[in-house]
């Protein structure tokens, strides 16, 4: 192990991500996932000034494509890629897709990879997705109140609060800051400010989680392109370099309850490869289906010590104009969770911010961003975690 | 014209038919309804038992048969108001023509004498009708004619189900004939059969008589028939009525449930 750990990973030299695309979210839509993915892919090609035939790599994430996979989509959408991937990792999909695509481009397996994530949200989609989410969920969590991720994160939150002293107000601060950020983001479904009073007195969902701790499931899509630096230059596209990425699955299986994600296993290498330190980061996009997991990401990525997430939140202004811009589009908590696209939201937003093309309030002088992903409550905890360090043209 | 078989052949039955239509002859039903709740004889539990009457619907204007209602029924040959053929008892097992399908049909339509034992049965539930009792009856109503049926009236059919069998821890208690009475009816009066209102032709405690179950043993041994679980005997005159009691024609049948009718002149 020591020997392998010691081997230095190759950098993502000459690879960039570009063309952040968001297909505006809808709370409910009768359209299927195919529609959302097609729309994102079309937007991507138009925005990049390429034709679909120029796309020779295709990477898809979606919960609601059934019975199709990425394979069926190639025929459905008229693509003939020479590299194809399907990333079923929920909230970690964005980071993992970027990783896979970056290596494909770097090694020449593909030149132009479209990474797309989209999901439908029909009136009954959420319930049906929960009931067949995973075998462990089916066997051992869904039968216990069918609270879905609300209940799973409620348990994590309850435990986190009891062991660290974090309070509802601390989580409220995260949610309020994101709402503040969302007010300037045109695609956010939540359009009203959120006060602490409203947060604390909101309808209980699964104690200690209340309404504003939860994301709103919706339909939508997110996408970006991965290509060589040269290709981006030729197309005259603002491009973002990939400094470092990590992913980890089923980390710390013997923790009785989730108190940390896989980031903690890999963060030293993450920062080393990126060649930057947490202090160098201009904005952080965490996976935020519930505020407790954002707080854990602050800790596990090294922005603060373990158990000090709440202090970190208390000590910072998390809005786009603040001391620690976090989830700058409003995150899923305020934009909405479009299924697997929720795992792309932060990455796509980071691409905009570090290229100075934010749709909402631009973080001043944003050059370097870290995006982290977290996904798949297979049973009692999220199994997938990942992170990417990105550098804009000005970095 | 007088209805008379000897002087005016061919007049008796038309006259009977006319009298029936005119209501001068009444038809009386001596039968209990076949009903699952009607008691049957109870034997010691290690013996085979008499099946209760049961019905199962086959269809009732429904998907099993849209325009018709019919049922299967099951029972023993000795369930409800029923006929005992000689072959029913071991004493009659070797007699010719002793099963319900082979018995000469003549015996199914005969004159009937009704011996009123109501008072005696009310006073003593184990009342045994004797030869002397029958002789006393004859003194009042005349000699029992040859080839007729003799029915023992006890009003037992009016009892509730539990009192009907009248089971106690030493067995059933109900009236019946003793051996002298049955021997008298067979040998001295040559009756075709003997019937009762109770669940059997023998008394409830008939197993303790000598021979045990004398009515069954002696009657069937002599090729005579039994009727039991009769009702409405209170509507019959002591003499002068005609009994109609054809059992079902069951191959080798030991008996059968049947409809028992009596014709009575008004």
């Amino acid at each position, binding site marked *: 192990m020591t020997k392998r750990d010691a081997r230095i990973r190759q950098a993502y030299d000459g690879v960039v991500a570009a063309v952040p695309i968001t297909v505006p979210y809808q709370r409910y839509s009768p359209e299927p996932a195919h529609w959302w993915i097609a729309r994102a892919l079309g937007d991507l090609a138009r925005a990049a000034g390429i034709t679909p035939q120029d796309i020779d790599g295709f990477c898809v994430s979606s919960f609601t494509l059934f019975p199709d996979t990425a394979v069926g989509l190639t025929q459905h959408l008229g693509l003939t890629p020479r590299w194809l991937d399907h990333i079923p990792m929920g909230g970690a999909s964005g980071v993992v897709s970027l990783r896979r695509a970056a290596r494909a481009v770097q090694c020449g397996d593909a030149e132009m990879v479209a990474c797309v994530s989209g999901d439908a949200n029909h009136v009954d989609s*959420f*319930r049906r997705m*929960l*009931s*067949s989410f995973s*075998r*462990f969920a*089916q*066997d*051992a*969590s*869904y*039968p*216990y*109140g*069918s*609270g*879905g991720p*609300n*209940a799973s994160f*409620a*348990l*994590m939150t*309850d*435990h986190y609060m*009891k062991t660290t002293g974090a309070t509802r107000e601390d989580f409220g601060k995260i949610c309020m800051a994101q709402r503040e950020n969302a007010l300037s983001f045109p695609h956010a479904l939540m359009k009203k400010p959120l006060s602490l009073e409203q947060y604390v007195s909101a*309808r*209980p*969902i*699964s*104690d*200690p*989680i209340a309404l504003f701790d939860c994301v709103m499931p919706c339909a939508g899509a997110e996408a970006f392109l991965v290509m060589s630096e040269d290709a981006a230059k030729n197309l005259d596209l603002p491009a973002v370099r990939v400094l470092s990425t990590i992913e980890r699955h089923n980390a710390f*299986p013997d923790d*009785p*309850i989730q108190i940390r994600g896989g980031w903690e296993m890999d963060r030293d290498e993450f920062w080393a490869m990126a060649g930057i330190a947490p202090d160098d980061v201009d904005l952080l996009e965490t996976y935020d289906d519930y505020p407790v997991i954002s707080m854990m990401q602050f800790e596990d990525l090294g922005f603060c010590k373990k158990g000090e997430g709440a202090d970190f939140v208390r000590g910072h202004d998390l809005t786009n104009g603040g001391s620690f811009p976090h989830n700058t589009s409003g995150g899923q908590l305020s934009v909405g969770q479009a299924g697997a696209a929720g795992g792309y939201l932060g990455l796509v937003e980071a691409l905009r911010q570090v290229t100075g093309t934010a749709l909402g309030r631009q973080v001043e002088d944003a050059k370097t961003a870290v995006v982290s992903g977290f996904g798949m409550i297979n*049973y*009692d905890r999220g199994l997938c975690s990942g992170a990417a360090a990105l550098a804009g043209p000005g970095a | 014209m007088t209805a008379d078989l000897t002087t005016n052949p061919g007049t008796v039955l038309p006259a009977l038919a006319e009298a029936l239509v005119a209501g001068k002859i009444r038809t009386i039903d001596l039968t209990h309804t076949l009903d*699952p*709740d009607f*008691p049957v004889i*109870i034997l010691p*539990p290690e013996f*085979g*038992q008499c*099946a*209760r009457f*049961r*019905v*199962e*619907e086959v269809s009732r204007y429904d998907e099993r048969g849209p325009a018709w209602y019919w049922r299967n029924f099951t029972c023993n040959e000795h369930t409800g108001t029923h006929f005992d053929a000689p072959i029913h008892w071991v004493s009659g097992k070797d007699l010719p023509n002793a099963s319900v399908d082979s018995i000469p049909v003549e015996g199914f339509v005969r004159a009937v004498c009704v011996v009123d034992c109501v008072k005696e049965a009310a006073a003593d539930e184990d009342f045994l009708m004797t030869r002397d009792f029958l002789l006393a009856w004859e003194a009042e109503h005349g000699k029992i004619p040859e080839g007729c049926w003799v029915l023992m009236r006890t009003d037992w059919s009016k009892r*509730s*189900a*539990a009192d*009907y*069998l009248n*089971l*106690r821890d030493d067995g059933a208690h109900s009236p019946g004939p003793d051996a002298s009475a049955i021997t008298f009816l067979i040998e001295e009066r040559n009756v075709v059969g003997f019937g009762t209102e109770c669940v059997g032709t023998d008394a409830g405690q008939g197993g303790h008589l000598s021979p045990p179950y004398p009515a069954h043993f002696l009657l069937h041994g002599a090729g005579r028939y039994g009727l039991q679980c009769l009702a409405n005997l209170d509507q019959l005159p002591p003499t002068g009525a005609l009994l109609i009691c054809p059992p079902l024609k069951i191959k080798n049948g030991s008996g059968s449930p049947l409809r028992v009718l009596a014709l009575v002149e008004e």
Partner: protein
Amino acid sequence: MTEAIKRPRRKDPQKRTVLPTLPPTSRSRRALGFTVAAAEGRFVLQKCNDCDAVTYPPREACPKCLSMNLAWRDMPEGGELIAETTIQTSTNVYFRERTPWRVGTVALEAGITVLAHIHGDVAEGGRVRMIARTDKSGQGVLMALPEEETENMADDKQLRELTCDPKHRRVLITDGRTQLGQAMARALSAAGASTVFVGVAETWRPFAGADELAAIPNVEVMGLDVTDTVSVNELASEIGGKVDILINTAEYVRAGGAMDRDGIVTARDEMEVNYFGPLRLIQAFGPGMRFRGADGVNSACAWVNLLSVYALSNWPAYGSTSASQAAAYSLSQCLRGEFHGSGVKVLNALFGPLEEDWRQHLPPPKVTPEGLAKAVVGALQQGLEELTVGAVAEDFLTRWKQDPRVLARELTQPEGA
């Protein structure tokens, strides 16, 4: 502290009966091993035969050593509640109708953590005692109870969803002519059943204990003969809408096999009582119970089959009766399938030789009618679906589980039993 459930008021005839809904039913095939044990009231988890690791949720291989050799093993019941939540909103209709609903993460003595239903009396962060039971969907679930008995513990809303407690419920015992039926009536009355209907066939036939039976509190003697379709249907039309627990105590037992018996009259009687009897009861009472599976405090909840353990494998000494019991046992599986969706559980109580006339010559150990009745009441209170009563039955079941075909061979030996 759990508040005692009050005896429900009479039903408002203008109110629509709440239809049964179910907690999630779907499980992997592997998870059914957990359900099987839960139906017996046993708490099992998979344990690796190679490295001793305990695993959960149900797996195909050991996550520590990738051994395929995992076996369901009884687990220590102790644990500690390390996190909890009260679910206020659920996407599942069953839970949505029953929120708030308490669940939590329990660190087990067995060394792993599990998600479980949490009894209302469990203290935050407190010690717990785990039970496994089948829920309304018929699937095994875990529930954490307070380590020590608490007042009115059985009345906890979530626990009562898993149990078939006779308290405040109306029970039909199908045959009160026997000592077994009478013992059952006494036990159910003592367990707090609000009404104990007791069927008696052929009321014209006297039977021992009749007066004592009628004198048991809350007992109502009703005419019922399970061999008579008309009688069964008539009683169902009278009380079918208020039978919450049906306990079929009717049985017909005669020694003897097939070859050494003359004719089939006895066998037919056995089938009439032991097979057609439950079939008639199912047709008459099943639909009403199935409809009333969520009908409040006294919802329909359990159907109890009392079966000779020789229903599992034929004992030639009672060969024909065994066959009829096997038919009944097979039918109970059909019934379980047909009750699925209603929340009504089928409890099969398999018992060894009973202390009664038709088994008088059999040697001890025997099950007394009182012992069987007590076991059935206990199983209802616990919400079990499988019960084995008596040393003979327990030994028999152990052998049957080990290898039914070896047991079959044993039973056909001259000394087999």
